[in-house]
C-alpha cells in the first residue's frame, strides 16, 4: 500500500518529524486558502499521485510539470487549477497517466545540503535497520553499488528499539554537527516512533535536507506498510486511495483474492502463491505470455472462483484462461462445479484449459467432461501450459 505525499506530511506532523508546512487542496480556492494560511515568501504546488517523476511529467492538456514554485496565493490557485482534474503522465505512470484530484501546497525551502535516510525491515537479520547516506536526492541503489562506503547501516534492537546513541552516531557519520546534531537525533527518534507505531516496513526520506537557515527537515518520503498489520492500524488502512490502484486488483482484494495484472494474454487462476508464480513461469517457458498473477488461496470457495473469472475477463487483452488447482484437501468436484458456474455466468467465449489435481479428482474431471462447455482438460502442469498456449495461438 502506498500513500500520498500530503498524507506522509500529516503523519510527520502527528509524530513531530520536522517537515516544511503543507496542506492538501482539492480545488483552486482551497489552494488559495492553503497558501494564505501557510504564508511565507516561497511556496510549492505539487500534484498528488502515487508515481514518481512528477516534476518532469506533462499533463495531457499540455501543461508541463507536476511540481511548480509559486510566489503568491493567487498564483497557487492558478497553478492548482491547471493541475486539478487533469491527467499527469510521468515515466512511472505509463502512457495512460494518472488523474490529479488533489494538490499539496507547501512551504518551499532553500536547500543547503541533501541526505538520504531510511528505516526499513532487513530480512537477512530479521531486524529493522537504518540506512543513511550523505548522497541525498540520488538513487540509493546506485550509491550502494558505486560507492558502498557512503552507505551507513545501523541495525535496531528488536525489543530495545532505536537508541539515542545510535542516532548521534549516525548524525556524526553524516557530519551533522553543532545544533544540527541534536535536531537529527530528535528527527530520527520521531521517525522511528512513527515507523514502529504505524507498523511500517519502509520509511524512506529522500531527501532529508539542511536548509540555508540551518534547519534539518524531511522533505519527501516514501512509506510502505505491513499489510498483515492493517487489522490493528485502522488509521493507516484509511489512507489507502483505491483510485490510485488497478481497479481489478481492488476488486480482487474485496473477495480475498490476490491478483496482479500483467501485460500478456493468457489469464491464470491458481491456488497458492508459489504454484501461481510457477504457472506464470511455465506459460512463458512454452512461448505464451501470462496476463496476471492470481492466487485464489488454499480454501477457495465457489464464490471466489466466480469472482476470479469476472476479474480475469475484465482484462480486454485476455485470449485464454488456464486454471491450475492442486486441490489437496479441497474437493476437486466442488472446484469443477465452481468453474462451470463461473464460465456459464460470464458467457465464456475464449479457450479454457483446466488442470485439476488432488482430492476427489476423478469426479471433478467427470463433471467438467459432462458439461456442455468446451473445456480443455489437461494432465499435469506441462500439458496444461502447452494446451493453453496452443489454443491462444490458434
Amino acid at each position, binding site marked *: 500500500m502506498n500513500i500520498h505525499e500530503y498524507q506522509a506530511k500529516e503523519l510527520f506532523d502527528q509524530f513531530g518529524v520536522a517537515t516544511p508546512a503543507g496542506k492538501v487542496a482539492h480545488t483552486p480556492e482551497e489552494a488559495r486558502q492553503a497558501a494564505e494560511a501557510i504564508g511565507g515568501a516561497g511556496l510549492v504546488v505539487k500534484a498528488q499521485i502515487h508515481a514518481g517523476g512528477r516534476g518532469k511529467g506533462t499533463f495531457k492538456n499540455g501543461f508541463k510539470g507536476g511540481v511548480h514554485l509559486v510566489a503568491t496565493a493567487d498564483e497557487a490557485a492558478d497553478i492548482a487549477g491547471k493541475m486539478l482534474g487533469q491527467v499527469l503522465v510521468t515515466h512511472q505512470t505509463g502512457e495512460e497517466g494518472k488523474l490529479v484530484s488533489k494538490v499539496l501546497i507547501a512551504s518551499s525551502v532553500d536547500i543547503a545540503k541533501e541526505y538520504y535516510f531510511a528505516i526499513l525491515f532487513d530480512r537477512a537479520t530479521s531486524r529493522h535497520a537504518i540506512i543513511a547516506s550523505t548522497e541525498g536526492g540520488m538513487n540509493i541503489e546506485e550509491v550502494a553499488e558505486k560507492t558502498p562506503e557512503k552507505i551507513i547501516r545501523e541495525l535496531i534492537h528488536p525489543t530495545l528499539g532505536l537508541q539515542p546513541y545510535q542516532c548521534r552516531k549516525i548524525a556524526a557519520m553524516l557530519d551533522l554537527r553543532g545544533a544540527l546534531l541534536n535536531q537529527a537525533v530528535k528527527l530520527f527518534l520521531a521517525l522511528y516512533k512513527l515507523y514502529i507505531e504505524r507498523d511500517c516496513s519502509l520509511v524512506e526520506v529522500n531527501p532529508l535536507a539542511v536548509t540555508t537557515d540551518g534547519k534539518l527537515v524531511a522533505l519527501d518520503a516514501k512509506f510502505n506498510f505491513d499489510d498483515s498489520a492493517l487489522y490493528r492500524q485502522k488509521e493507516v488502512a484509511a489512507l489507502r486511495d483505491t483510485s490510485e490502484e488497478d481497479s481489478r486488483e481492488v476488486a480482487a482484494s474485496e473477495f480475498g483474492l490476490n491478483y496482479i495484472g500483467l501485460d500478456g494474454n493468457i489469464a491464470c487462476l491458481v491456488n497458492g502463491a508459489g*504454484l501461481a508464480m510457477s504457472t506464470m513461469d*511455465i506459460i512463458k517457458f512454452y512461448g505464451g505470455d501470462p496476463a496476471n498473477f492470481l492466487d485464489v488461496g488454499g480454501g477457495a470457495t465457489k464464490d471466489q472462483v466466480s469472482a476470479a473469472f469476472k476479474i480475469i475477463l475484465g482484462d480486454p487483452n485476455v485470449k485464454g484462461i488456464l486454471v491450475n488447482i492442486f486441490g489437496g484437501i479441497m474437493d476437486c468436484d466442488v472446484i469443477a462445479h465452481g468453474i462451470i458456474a463461473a464460465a456459464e455466468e460470464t458467457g465464456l467465449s475464449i479457450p479454457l484449459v483446466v488442470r485439476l489435481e488432488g482430492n476427489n479428482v476423478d469426479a471433478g474431471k467427470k463433471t467438467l467432461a459432462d458439461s456442455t462447455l468446451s473445456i480443455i482438460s489437461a494432465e499435469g502442469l506441462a500439458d496444461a501450459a502447452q494446451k493453453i498456449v496452443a489454443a491462444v495461438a490458434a
Partner: protein
Amino acid sequence: MSILVDSNTRILVQGITGDFGSRHARASLDYGTQLVAGVTPGKGGQSFDHGSFRVPVYDTVAEAARETGATVSVIFVPPPFAADAILEGVDAGLDLVVAITEGIPVNDMIKVKAAMAHSKTRLIGPNCPGLVTPGTGEKSHGGCRIGIAPGYIHQRGTIGVVSRSGTLTYEAVWQLTTAGYGQSTCVGIGGDPVNGTSHLDVLKMFNDDPETEAIIMIGEIGGDAEETAALWAKDHCKKPIAGFIAGATAPPGRRMGHAGAIISGGQGTAQAKKQTLRECGIAVAETPAEIGATLISLLK
C-alpha cells in the same frame, strides 16, 4: 529415520476447536498421526471427538504437554493471537512449534524470533503448510502429518523436500510419488520474510539424516535464503540436490502473494537465484513440471 518428526511423534494442536484447526486435526487423525492433545483457552476439560478418537482439550500448552507427553505443537490460531501462541509453546519447552497461521504482523515475528534466540524450541513457519513424514501404510498412512498438506500424495521413501510454498510443494511431491519415488520428510518453511527455520537449517538436517538420499529444494523470488543454503551445500552437502525457483516472470516491486516474495532493488530475482544454485552444483529444473524428473535424473 526422517527429520524433525516420525510416526511416534506426539503432537498437540493450538486452536483445535476453530474451523480451520479442527478440519486439519481430523485429517491428521485419519492419517494415523499421534495427535494427542488440543489447546483452546476456556475449553479445558472438553474433548475433541472424531470417529473413535477422543482428543483431550486443555486450557494451556504447558498442561497439554505435561499430561499427554506431546513435544510438538501446530498452531492454527488467528493472526492477532499467533505470536503469543508461539511463545506459549516455547515457554512449555516443546521441541518444535509449527505455525500455519498466515498474516502475522512482521513486528510480532521480529519479537518472537528475538525471544526464541536461546530457547530449545525450533519454529517452522509461520504462513507454512507444515511438514509430513510419510507412513508405511497405504497412501502413506501412519505417518506424521502436521499442518495442511494432503497426506495421500506422499509415499514413504528417501527424498527430502524443503520449500517456501504450499501447493507448489504438493506439486513436486506428487511428481515424485507418481514416478515411484517416496519421501523421507517434506518440510514447508513458509513464505513470510521472518521465519523460524530456513532452507539452510533443513538442508543440514537432511544431510545428517541417514535415510535421506537426495534433496529437493524449492524456492521463490525475494530475499537470499536459497543462495545461502546453496553456498553451504556446495562445500558441505554429501547428497544430490535438485532445485526450482518460482517467479521468473514476476514483475519487480510487487508482492506475489507471499509477503516474502518480492523483488526489490534488483535483488532476489529468479534468474540470479537459479544461477547461484547452478554454480553450487544444484540441478535446477527448467520448469515446475520437471522438479521430480530433475531429482530422479540425479539418482541414475
